[in-house]
């Protein structure tokens, strides 16, 4: 018996390790709770990137379901979601951008090399609006309903899978209810 226990020891240790691995996979750091969920967008007026005479405010996001994407040219993983954002824009999703703590010229150059999926982009040069939104880091994406209420937020690179799993059910529900 003692020998069997000894032989099972490595397997036993391994199973414990796997248990912790399993659990830590389910602890997805990207699903951060947001204090802003279910609340209206904070009030803001930002100059539009590339055309500072125009302004973007929270009222522009009313009336239609849209997403607000926080990005910056210095954010290397923002490129990772650009292909998918371009795809979303092409299938008709309204995307607003929040250019986070960026340099105007860099941001415009960045858009010319990686494409522009945004309807309008607000220049949040000092990051104040991002603080009001409770932004954790770029990239980050908010789902906004037609009343300007934040319905979901995702921190990290947006992918087709996340879109299907997290955004689409909520969008369908919102459309169904109204």
């Amino acid at each position, binding site marked *: 018996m003692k*020998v*069997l226990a*000894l*032989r*099972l*020891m*490595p*397997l036993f240790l*391994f*199973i414990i*390790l*796997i*248990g*912790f*691995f*399993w*659990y*830590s*996979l389910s*602890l*997805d750091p990207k699903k951060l709770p947001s204090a802003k969920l279910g609340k209206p967008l904070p009030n803001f007026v930002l100059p539009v990137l590339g055309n500072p005479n125009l302004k973007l405010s929270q009222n522009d996001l009313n009336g239609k379901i849209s997403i607000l994407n926080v990005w910056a*040219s*210095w954010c*290397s993983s923002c*490129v*990772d979601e*650009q*292909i998918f954002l*371009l*795809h979303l824009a*092409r299938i008709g999703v309204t995307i607003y951008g929040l250019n986070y703590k960026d340099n105007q010229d*860099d941001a415009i150059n960045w858009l010319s*090399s*990686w*494409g522009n999926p945004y309807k309008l982009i607000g220049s949040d040069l000092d990051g104040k609006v991002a603080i009001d939104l409770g932004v954790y880091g770029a990239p980050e994406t908010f789902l906004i309903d037609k009343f300007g209420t934040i319905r979901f937020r995702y921190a990290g*690179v947006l992918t087709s*899978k996340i879109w299907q799993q997290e955004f689409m059910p909520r969008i369908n529900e919102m459309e169904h209810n109204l």
Partner: protein
Amino acid sequence: MIAEIGLFALLLALLFAFMLVIVPTLGIIFNKEDWQASVKIYVPLQFFFVALAYLALTVCFLTDDFTVSYVLMNSSKSLPLFYKICAVWGGHEGSMLLWVFILTLWMFAVNLFSKNLFFPLKIRVLIVLGLLSIGFILFIIITSNPYSRQFEILQTVGRDLNPLLQDPGFLFHPPMLYMGYVGFSVAFSFAIAALWLGRVESSWAKWTRPWTLAAWCFLTAGITLGSWWAYRELGWGGWWFWDPVENASFMPWIVGTALIHSLAVAEKREQFIAWTLLLAITAFSLSLVGTFLVRSGVLTSVHAFAVDPERGLYILIFLLVVIGGSLGLFALRAKSVVRVKNLNLISREAALLLNNVFLMVIMLTILMGTVYPLIIDGLGLGKLSVGAPYFNAVFIPLMIPLLILMGFGVQLNWQRDGFKRLYSVLGLVGLLSLFIPALLEIIITKSFNLNVYLGLVLAFWVLLSTLKTLLIRLKISGFMGISLAYLGMVIAHLGLSLTVIGITLSSGYGIESDVKMSPGEHIFFAGFDIRFVSESSLTGANYHGNRAHFMISSNGYEKSIFPEKRIYNVGNIPMTESAIDVSLFRDIYVALGEPINDDSWSVRFYYKPFVRFIWGGGFFIFFGGFLALVDSRYYLKGRKKNKLTFKAKI
């Protein structure tokens, strides 16, 4: 088109991997010799198609095919050709493809060089390897397809390869490391095949040893190169960070080292057989666990790849099947974990057993430190990270008894030895290793640092004892009587003592200094006069920046070095290219920090005595392993005899 050919080739490779597993297994069940023999067709076919798949991805890089997302994300038009070839393994998807390529390369080699291997063992080894390759090819196809295309971004120059990777070290380090990592799969498969057969002959160890040694050599070289590269490229003079990814490569190395030693006992004394099987399973299991930790994103690390929980889940299930299955099989089939027949306390067997115990304890403490943040988080006790202070605090005290043991171990005879003989051989060696370091330290540095002294005593103890055993052997059997395997052991052990000397002296007597300097100024640093001569702007293929000229001089010695601050054009990423005045006994390392105002810079200087010994020792260890590997006794005569003994047992 090329990318689609690549994907198709990978699918064909998957098909042949399935054939490789299914047909011979049915052959074993229904006792059909020719079905079993089909491995010799499937292995080369699978290798060919994986190589084709790999080649296709390389062609995508060389032709700047940015519709392939992976190429878009890891290359650019201006990336030099040399880096385009290496950029194939610059991201997650491609490095998994490299992993599979190397796995099939090992399989191809096993198939080629095992003509005389006991046939039932050989086919089982290849079936197990085939199963592993199925797991990895499916992983690539399901979660990490490097050939997937995008048509959203077409007007692009590409995102460029991560600038940290744009260094010649990148050509060698990942493939070497993977050769080692993946190479342990062969020893693993030999162990599983032996458990499957239900018996182990002494020649099993003889057959497993060269494969283990080869993988271990590659891993040694890979880790050494990685450390040297980090020192050059990360810009702050460190050479080991206890980063989770480094630990993920170091743990299999430690267990591999234990395995090499226990295989020696298994081969020579037919002892520790079950223990050796367990080590062979553990070494490769740790490679897999390392892959999980790195690719799932459960731990953050400087080596982070694109993180995806689904990949983590796949690898976790794969881990559960492969490692859980193997350990389960082990529990069922092995008679005991450590069965020791008439072990004498003062004998080489005992020393090697103790060596194994220490190495396993070291591995477990590193594993503990690496996964501790996960465990604390899993128990809901908060988030924390475990850094170098923990690892240094546990690793160094465990190395001390191991090094002391090493000095004794190399002298001990098999079966039985005596205190008296040991004393007569090692008495002087012990005294000298206590005195020489003290003398050297006091004469050269005119100071006394206890930590340095202790480190040097241990290094000299190993060094002198190893040289002594070589001398004794030379006296007894003459120059021709020394086998390459023995010489390899001596060189590898000397290498370890050189590494210990390098670590001890560079951390004990290293100096660093942060200075604000502008061109024309000079400082006195570590006995050298260092002048900031000039600064100029710099333009490279895919970067621009500044290049500084520093002149180091001392007593007629003069040397110019040119540290750079580069800004990579795509992504505007700044990189520090340090410049190092290298010599055998000391490095002077200069790194440009940030420009402070128009003409002055923050500059960082390091003086690192004996730092080259760290990697020099690593190279010695590698070379020792290589000598043991080419020792002819594993090949010519030995093999024929094995075949006979095996036949005799059937």
